């Protein structure tokens, strides 16, 4: 539907011909009404996109298609805790609908508070039916952090705390996929002073494999790749030490960035809107956190229109990293603030220079005291003082 709005803008600016072309490109929308039934072309395209993101050989695409189109769709329980639903939104409302539809096509979404039709008792019944019928077989997807403080009362669904729900669902799941930075590492909710004691899934769940797909929101391709990898190879993809799949989080943004040549050449945007910024130079000096952030943003990109923050002139904010809200802020500075008991020191180098100045002053004072003492001694004992010093 979003595409229709875009095409009308195009028709105003560039005329009828352009409009027609856009409509042809949007043929899978079937008369501008979003059709949840994915056509075969879209299905294959989605699988291929995911295979590309996974970095697997194209010879494996038929196997993935086969796994994805299997009649036995794996049941999925999608738990929402302390979150904004942004991960779900970005997943299901991608401008090009193949990925979103592919997800709904290959999994059986038995419980998802945002998109399920049922509510109240019906919804909870669906959850418990799946838990019993598919124990050990279903995938559990968690969106949002889990508050643990004060017995977890800060997030309750159907009268039960998030901690309780996760403790019931996770051990029965075949695997848990933590989607988004909140369920992976606690996210914004866990930012200091973390009033609700929010934590990620891995802090609470042991015994069931947990994979983290952090990001705010994560790229739908990274989630899809993990699910398809699981369906095709019957196991989760290999991960780094933080539980993130290597196919998506194996490299730093900085090392794959299209502006990297500008960095090496010393061409920087000194401030937003200046000559360097307008010319697409490196955003390092305006606080880009790409050098500290593992993600596939520069390669997978977002929204099927080939963009990611840096490509549109904004630095990376490091949203896929643990404690990103505490360690990546201020977003427009290179280094975080220093947290001391007395408060924040916003400028570590300024503080360093001050302390270095004070040290130099102390050194000067020490030398002066020594010199004065020596002069006093010389006056008292005459010329033969040298041996006493």
């Amino acid at each position, binding site marked *: 539907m979003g595409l229709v709005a875009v095409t009308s803008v195009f028709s105003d600016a560039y005329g009828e011909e352009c409009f027609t072309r856009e409509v042809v490109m949007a043929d899978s929308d079937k008369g501008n009404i979003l059709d949840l039934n994915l056509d075969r072309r879209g299905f294959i395209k989605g699988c291929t996109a995911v295979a590309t993101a996974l970095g697997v050989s194209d010879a494996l695409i038929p196997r993935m298609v086969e796994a994805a189109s299997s009649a036995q769709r794996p049941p999925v329980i999608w738990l929402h805790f302390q979150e904004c639903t942004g991960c779900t939104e970005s997943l299901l409302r991608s401008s090009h609908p193949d990925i979103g539809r592919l997800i709904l096509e290959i999994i059986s979404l038995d419980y998802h508070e945002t998109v399920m039709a049922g509510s109240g008792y019906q919804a909870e019944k669906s959850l418990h039916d799946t838990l019993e019928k598919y124990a050990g077989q279903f995938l559990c997807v968690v969106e949002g952090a889990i508050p643990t403080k004060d017995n977890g009362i800060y997030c309750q669904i159907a009268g039960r705390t998030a901690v309780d729900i996760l403790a019931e669902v996770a051990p029965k799941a075949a695997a848990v996929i933590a989607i988004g930075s909140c369920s992976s590492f606690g996210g914004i909710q866990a930012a200091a002073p973390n009033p609700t004691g929010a934590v990620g899934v891995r802090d609470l769940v042991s015994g069931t494999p947990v994979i983290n797909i952090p990001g705010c929101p994560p790229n739908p391709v990274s989630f899809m790749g993990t699910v398809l990898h699981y369906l095709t190879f019957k196991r989760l993809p290999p991960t*780094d*030490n*933080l539980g993130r799949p290597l196919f998506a989080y*194996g*490299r*730093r943004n900085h*090392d794959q960035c299209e502006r990297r040549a500008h*960095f*090496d*050449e*010393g*061409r*920087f945007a*000194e401030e937003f809107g200046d*000559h*360097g910024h307008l*010319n697409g*130079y490196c955003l*390092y*000096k305006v606080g880009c*956190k790409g*050098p*500290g*952030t*593992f993600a596939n943003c520069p390669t997978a990109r977002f929204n099927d229109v080939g963009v990611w923050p840096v490509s549109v002139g904004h630095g990376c904010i*490091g949203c896929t*990293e*643990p*404690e*990103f809200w505490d*360690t*990546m802020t201020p977003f427009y500075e*290179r*280094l*975080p603030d*220093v947290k001391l008991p007395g408060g924040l020191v916003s400028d*570590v*180098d300024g503080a*360093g220079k001050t*302390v*270095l100045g004070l*040290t*130099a002053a102390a*050194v000067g004072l*020490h*030398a002066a*005291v*020594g010199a004065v*003492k020596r002069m006093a001694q010389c006056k008292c004992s005459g010329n033969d003082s040298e041996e*006493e*010093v």
Partner: protein
Amino acid sequence: MSYETVRVWSWLLRVYHWALVVSITALAITGWYVNAPWTGTTLEGVASMPVLAMRNVHFAAGYLFTGALLIRIYLFLFGNRFEKLGDLLPVTGRNLRNLFSTALYYLYLSPTKEERMGHNVLAGMSYLLTMLVAVFQLISGFFLLYPESSFWQGLGGAIFSSQQQGRFVHHILMWYFLFFALIHVYLVIWNEIKAPEGLISSIFSGRKFKENEN
């Protein structure tokens, strides 16, 4: 008054010292540049690569720094009697007495200090602390240099949690070396003036002068 010459510092310790001086100087300058490049250009089509060059110097100096650190750790364990850890740690009565006597001497509260040919214990402890900081500097540095290596990811991740935290610690520890350099150079000059042992020349020649007891 006559003096005798005592061989104190092995050639390896002197190599370590100067490798550390060179590497820390290079690391501080290039590290500062990499953190906040003071150059900026709008020139395109000219391959001068200043940031790349600075980073390469930083990495090379980092390896020199690592080598120096390894030498010192070796000497702490297997060096001569002036270089070994046992001569520095304030755990024996002899070393504790030396620590307090040196502190009083440095505070101008005592006109003499206990004579010792190797490091006095106060200096020795500050060097030990420096080596400890250097270990963390080294781990955070390699964690940033090899982000995709599972070894450094495991070690660095366990200590610093994320790249950004590692970078932050790496940057703050740089300041320690600046403070250390300032105080170290001052105290060396101060000692050189106060006592006739030839402290500064000893780090070139390895020899110190000891007063003969008559």
